[in-house]
């Protein structure tokens, strides 16, 4: 559920800058009623549960205990290591992703193969994290006769089979998890850096050169200082917040014996409190919540300028700049090939039957369609796919309607009110669901939909709305004044205006829809916490099968491949809309 949701913060960040909604429009009549659905959802399923969790963290059965739960939770053996590992994730991984993202974005610019490279890098972004976990667990299988990475490392190190390096062992497991995460996220960073690089006016570089600047001066004065510094900060913050969702990967990739060595706060909270939220679990949850929201707030307030800057009115003439140097182009091509390897491993494993996939490597047995045949002829996969499709479609449609209604009146706000709303929505969109699972369940019980498909959909909708409202609000607010006037003149009623505005903001609507759909499709945690019998979506379906990983790897790989087709196609097809929609006002 992670990457796409966080992408939203891009759009948000340009919202806390200097007030730029100088064009004040009269609020349209009683449109505040339009806010009602979003307010009810957010109030009932996000705000109230957050308050309940905070309450639970300082009480036992309703009795005030002060900081006792915090002391117990933080003093529990291993908590120090867990917190340390969480911080390491939040610092190291974003640094690597940001650096790689910039390098690859620069290296894949203005060359013929660059588009293909970026396309390949984008595919992992769209995969469910569960599938990423499955893929890398296949790669890192401790048996060199099955795990490609283990085999290669054994050969390179000249070790015997008995002494093969164990990527999933206690010493290396965090590195293995991080590598999977980097693989999944670099495409996103490349996408962002690329649009940032494209937004740098070439005239700036020309000016630097005219004053005798060298290549490094161009880099520094024409790219880094005006724009890339800020973009780097944004990407870093995004990925850092994204690492709070490594939960899926850990659950899928780590055998039970090394789970402690891989554990981060998300997992610790899960282990402490499961589906309920009480005592120590609530205390850890509050710590986590404060860190995540604090982090995104600092990032938002720190980066106080519109990003990327609004495009200059006159489109820059095609830049007569040479493609990157050969060595960089080779780097980009090499990265693309490296990024393809895990995908190839997944597909190759899926082309083996249960016994072959479990007993030997995919390279030592001829491929066959046994796993696919079993899946396709059975009913389970189809039922799960069907349910997930239905769920994701219904959630996306509802989120879109609720968010459009709410974004319309919110877009007229200016000044501090607009900024405050932006920050509030931003905070709501990064609340980790594990932290508020217990209270959300209570609320769902009130409306009689706990453990049902409706309940599951309701939680998804509530979690998706803040992000969608943000993006759409920003898009509406940034519309050129003539378009709004035309819309208001053309439509006699507010919904006509809304419809026209939505049409003018096609990119934002598409971006919101695709991201919401993919997020629900790829979700594991929400499904696991709130799914029930008869409402089990793809994420939990795949994750359950990983409990006996090796004996199931054929079917698991095959269902992973089938589960990934739709999100990959959607993201790849809509990639231009995604960027354009998220940075809304700036690009049109």
């Amino acid at each position, binding site marked *: 559920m992670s990457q796409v949701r966080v992408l939203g913060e891009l759009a948000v960040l340009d919202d806390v800058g200097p007030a730029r909604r100088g064009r004040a429009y009269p609020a349209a009549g009683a449109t505040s009623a339009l806010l009602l659905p979003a307010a009810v959802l957010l109030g009932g399923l996000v705000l109230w549960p957050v308050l309940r969790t905070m309450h639970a963290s300082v009480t036992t059965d309703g009795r005030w205990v002060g900081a006792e739960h915090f002391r117990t939770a933080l003093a529990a053996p291993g908590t120090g290591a867990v917190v340390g590992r969480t911080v390491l994730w939040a610092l190291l991984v974003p640094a690597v992703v940001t650096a790689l993202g910039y390098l690859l974005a620069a290296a894949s610019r203005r060359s013929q193969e660059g588009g293909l490279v970026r396309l390949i890098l984008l595919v992992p972004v769209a995969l469910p994290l569960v599938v990423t976990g499955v893929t890398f667990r296949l790669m890192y299988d*401790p048996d060199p006769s099955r795990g490609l990475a283990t085999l290669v490392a054994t050969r390179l190190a000249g070790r015997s089979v008995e002494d093969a390096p164990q990527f999933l062992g206690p010493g290396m497991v965090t590195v293995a998890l991080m590598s999977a995460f980097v693989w999944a996220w670099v495409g996103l960073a490349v996408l962002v850096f690329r649009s940032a690089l494209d937004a740098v006016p070439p005239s700036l570089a020309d000016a630097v050169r005219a004053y005798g600047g060298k290549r490094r001066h161009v880099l520094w004065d024409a790219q880094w200082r005006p724009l890339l510094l800020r973009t780097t900060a944004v990407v870093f913050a995004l990925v850092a917040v994204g690492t709070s969702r490594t939960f899926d990967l850990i659950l899928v990739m780590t055998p039970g*014996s090394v789970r402690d060595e891989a554990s981060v706060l998300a997992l610790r909270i899960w282990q402490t409190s499961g589906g309920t939220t009480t005592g120590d679990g609530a205390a850890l949850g509050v710590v986590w919540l404060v860190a995540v929201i604090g982090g995104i707030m600092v990032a938002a307030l720190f980066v106080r300028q519109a990003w990327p800057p609004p495009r200059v009115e006159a489109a820059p003439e095609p830049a007569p700049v040479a493609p990157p140097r050969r060595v960089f182009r080779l780097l980009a091509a090499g990265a693309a090939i490296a990024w393809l390897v895990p995908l190839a491993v997944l597909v190759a494993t899926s082309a083996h039957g249960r016994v072959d996939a479990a*007993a030997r490597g995919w390279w030592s047995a001829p491929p066959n369609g046994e796993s696919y045949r079993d899946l396709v002829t059975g009913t389970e996969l189809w*039922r799960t796919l069907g349910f997930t499709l239905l769920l994701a479609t219904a959630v996306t449609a509802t989120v879109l309607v609720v968010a459009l209604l709410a974004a319309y009146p919110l877009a007229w706000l200016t000044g501090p009110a607009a900024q405050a709303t932006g920050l509030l929505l931003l905070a709501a969109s990064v609340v980790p669901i594990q932290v508020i699972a217990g209270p959300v369940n209570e609320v769902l019980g009130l409306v009689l939909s*706990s*453990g049902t498909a409706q309940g599951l959909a309701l939680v998804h909708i509530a979690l998706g709305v803040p992000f969608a409202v943000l993006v759409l609000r920003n898009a509406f607010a940034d519309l050129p004044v003539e378009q709004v006037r035309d819309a208001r003149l053309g439509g006699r009623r507010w919904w006509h205006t809304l419809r026209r505005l939505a049409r003018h903001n096609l990119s934002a609507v598409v971006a919101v829809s695709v991201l919401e759909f993919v997020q629900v499709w790829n979700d594991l945690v929400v499904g696991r916490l709130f799914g029930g019998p008869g409402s089990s979506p793809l994420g939990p379906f795949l994750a*359950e099968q990983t409990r*006996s990983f090796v004996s*199931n790897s054929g079917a698991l790989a095959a269902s992973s491949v089938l589960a990934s087709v739709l999100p990959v196609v959607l993201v790849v097809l809509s990639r231009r809309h995604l960027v354009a929609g998220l940075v809304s006002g700036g690009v049109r």
Partner: protein
Amino acid sequence: MRPPAGVSRRMLLRAAAAGATALAAGCSGGTRSVQVAVVWSSSELDRFREVVAGYPAPVQVISAGNDIDAFLRARHLAGTSPDVAILPRPGLVTEYAQRGWLSPVRPSTDYAVRVELSDLLMTESERYGVWVKAAHKSLVWHLPSVLPAPPTTWDELVHRIRQLAARARRDGGPVPLAIGAADGWVLTDWFENVLADVAPGSYYALAQQGADWQDKPVRDALDRLAGLWSIDGAFVGGGRRALLTQYEESVIQVVHTRRAVMLLGADFTADVVRPFRRGPEAPVTFRFPGTQPGGGPLIVGGDAAVAFADARGGVELVEWLARADSFQPWLREGGYLSPNTNVSITSYTDGVGQRLATEMRAPGTLRFDLSDQLRGAFTGSDGVGIWRIMQGFFADVTDGVRASEAIRRATGLLAAAARSAGGGR
């Protein structure tokens, strides 16, 4: 701890579908159907549906997946508890009973299980659940051609493992043992088998609150385990590799790739053996050996049915499930052991089932799975509780840490975990 209800249960490949069917069936079955939450999925779930099809009223079966505890807590919180649940751990039954979630049940005289089992479901002299399914967890699986004469005592087992390990080192034959140490319950099963043999009298005391986990029985059992586990070359790929091997993979190492000779399993190991066995030779089992020949321990797991307070028709269904003839459809299909001694041995259709059922009735050291009786997080799951502690112990002794030091560490952790679980979670 067993894998909550066997192998096939974890293959949720079919669970979602089954759940959907359950929901559909439940909805179409009218509003008065009794709702049962189970951990089973796949073929076990289908079998159980056949069983409740014999119940006079409509029954809606829902598969709650592996973590039925979280499922039931969430449902309770939301006020939508099912009428009946079938729980894989007696510890849950007493926990729920003490919280007042359950109704007492009074099965007919037709329900007869061994007192060691039935006592586990009693709280304050009220019975809150009945056993509906049992698992035999003291079986060592092997191929007869690879191990023609199985050891009958613990010392013989250790001796044989030394021999096999030496032979494997010398000329690369199969190593003596496969073990799925990545799954903590495999290690607790080892521990329980040994503990039931070295200290049968102290076994159940450890399940009580305030038990001394640093006392002699635990140390003796761990010492015995350390003696065997620390044998050089005992496990496929060594100890570090074994800790990354899941239970199913360890079965494959014995019956398919034949890299190992034996593994400690259970009657439900047959579910993995079936798809992965190779050639005409069928893997067979022998009883986990104890100090005396023929007097080995017998560790039993099981599932208990409970009725929730305020349930509609829950108590009646539970009492019906306790009857000897209720599970006939599952008995006929095989892969089911009844805890009820009124079920006649001849109603098992296969020889193995008859043998295991007979063994479970024989007088002797029958002990119920200890980790399943522990409270709160101590009961173990991935990375938590006794599972994690036993994995740490396994890592120590296979890594050359002296047995006394490893035992000191493990008992210290066990005692701490027992203390913090005492107050419940």
